[in-house]
């Protein structure tokens, strides 16, 4: 790893230490709850970001996968007394399976129709939750158990979610920096070029979509146990748009950007009372401002700052191929 990547690395560690000690310096319980909520949304957005921000597939229906994870956890851990850990894993698994079933027929559709398919999926899930009252409690809802000690207290629950969010962030960052991330960006920016070097476009879209189903299922389970009670009203369609907006505001092809977007969009309306009154209007105005002023998202601002920190390129030399070096480079990579 090169020296230039040490600075962001040190920054990440500092942020993580600050977050892990939050229960000891937070002003009140409510701030811890808010931080836990951000962690839940980020777990979902981190996976969705690979689909939307990297792969360029516009899913606006992930709230459906979130609801599936939440209800699976509530039913398995609450009604059937499964261990919360096994129920959590099952929620993630079910999210992944549902992602597969949704992605298989829809990921071949052109962008606009894919977005519509994910929207239809979210609406169908919402209707099913109401219709299957025996299972889901219908309009009345379900109470949801928490996790055993030491994760029972609000601070413990928060630290659990922070731990999971950290692991998921690390996984997403790995996907982004290895060839997978580049291939996803190629699918987003130039699918023809992606195919020309052998990228299996559909298979990759499907793989990240399934992964985003897993994180949505996990987020749903953790969110439900954080709320301790869920009803169909918890999973309104606007929530799916909210996740999408977090990524657009954060910036495509970045991880820090959507993370900041999720934190800001979750916390601001809660911390600044006048903004809460605006409700959805606040998100709308912010989205408008970002799209008009920084269309590349706030993630791009981070990048610009990092590029400033880097030493400047000095001269601008001419393009001068070197036949001997080129031949050596080609021969070196020849197939056996």
């Amino acid at each position, binding site marked *: 790893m090169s020296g230039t990547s040490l600075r962001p690395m040190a920054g990440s560690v500092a942020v993580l230490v600050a977050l892990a000690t939050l229960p000891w310096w937070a002003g009140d319980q409510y701030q811890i709850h808010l931080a836990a909520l951000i962690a839940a949304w980020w777990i979902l957005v981190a996976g969705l970001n690979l689909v939307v921000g990297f792969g360029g597939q516009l899913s606006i229906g992930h709230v459906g996968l979130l609801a599936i994870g939440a209800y699976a956890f509530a039913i398995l851990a609450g009604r059937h007394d499964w261990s919360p850990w096994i129920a959590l894993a099952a929620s993630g698994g079910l999210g992944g399976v549902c992602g597969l079933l949704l992605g298989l027929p829809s990921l071949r559709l052109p962008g606009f129709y894919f977005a519509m398919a994910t929207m239809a999926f979210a609406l169908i899930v919402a209707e099913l939750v109401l219709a299957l009252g025996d299972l889901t409690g219908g309009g009345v809802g379900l109470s949801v158990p928490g996790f055993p000690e030491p994760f029972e207290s609000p601070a413990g629950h928060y630290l659990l979610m922070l731990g999971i969010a950290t692991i998921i962030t690390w996984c997403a960052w790995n996907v982004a920096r290895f060839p997978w991330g580049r291939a996803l*960006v190629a699918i987003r920016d130039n699918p023809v070029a992606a195919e020309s070097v052998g990228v299996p476009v559909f298979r990759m879209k499907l793989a990240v979509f399934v992964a985003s189903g897993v994180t949505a299922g996990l987020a749903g389970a953790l969110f439900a146990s954080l709320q301790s009670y869920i009803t169909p009203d918890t999973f309104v369609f606007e929530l799916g748009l909210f996740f999408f907006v977090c990524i657009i505001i954060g910036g495509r092809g970045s991880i820090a950007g959507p993370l900041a977007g999720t934190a800001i969009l979750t916390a601001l309306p809660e911390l600044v009372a006048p903004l809460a009154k605006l409700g959805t209007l606040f998100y709308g105005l912010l989205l408008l401002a970002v799209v008009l002023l920084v269309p590349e998202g706030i993630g791009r601002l981070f990048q610009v700052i990092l590029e400033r920190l880097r030493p400047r390129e000095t001269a601008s030399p*001419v393009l001068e191929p070197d036949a001997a070096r080129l031949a050596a480079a080609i*021969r070196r990579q020849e197939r056996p």
Partner: protein
Amino acid sequence: MTALVADGVTKRFGGLTALAAVSLDVQPGEVHGLIGPNGSGKTTLLNMLCGYYPVDEGAVRIGEEDLSRASVQRRAAVGIARTFQKPRLLPTQTVLENAMLGGWRDTRTGFLAAALSMPRVRAEQRELRDRAQAVLEGLGLGYALKRRAQLLDHAESRFLEIGRALVLRPRFVLLDEPAGGLTGAEIERLGIVIRTLRDCGIGVLLVEHHTEFVFGICDRVTTLNLGRMIRHGTPHEVRHDPEVIRVYLGS
């Protein structure tokens, strides 16, 4: 020696016959020129060789292996690489990352292995970065490795596309008007690159309008007009063919 062969390839777009039973072969270690007026079907033939369009009639082969029904990805895997008439790069990625994309088919690790940053994934990444960097340095792009592709000038973009094609470890490289928009000096440097590919045993199909450049560098030249092959031969034979002069070169 296995050649890349188009055998009587026909392609229709609705009522228009863009290619009518065109045959051509590219041998390893040769530069094969493909010339003809605009709309004569050069890009279409290139797309057929790469698998973007299925053949209506005829076949595409490498040696004995029939690729007529093979996907674009499969053809990349057997070593067919290409550049585009209008460069297709990833604007937000760096030059090095764009070139590394060319090595995609050498990444054997799956999604989970990447997400967990297994040692094998990191080794693969290192190996890929090293050889992409070596190729770019050979092309003269060593000074721009960390530049975002959207900041490149036109010639740099064209060379980077060639770089990406080379990182694929191709047996055949199909270049669609690589000299388009380049200055005289830049075309000369492009010539150095193409000759180097040939010397390394790569078969090059060169679609180009700069006829002096084509006749100077190619071992053989095929001429298309209105989707039909009108002349095939050495540069000397083609440039003195009355039919080629009439429809394309002018007098």
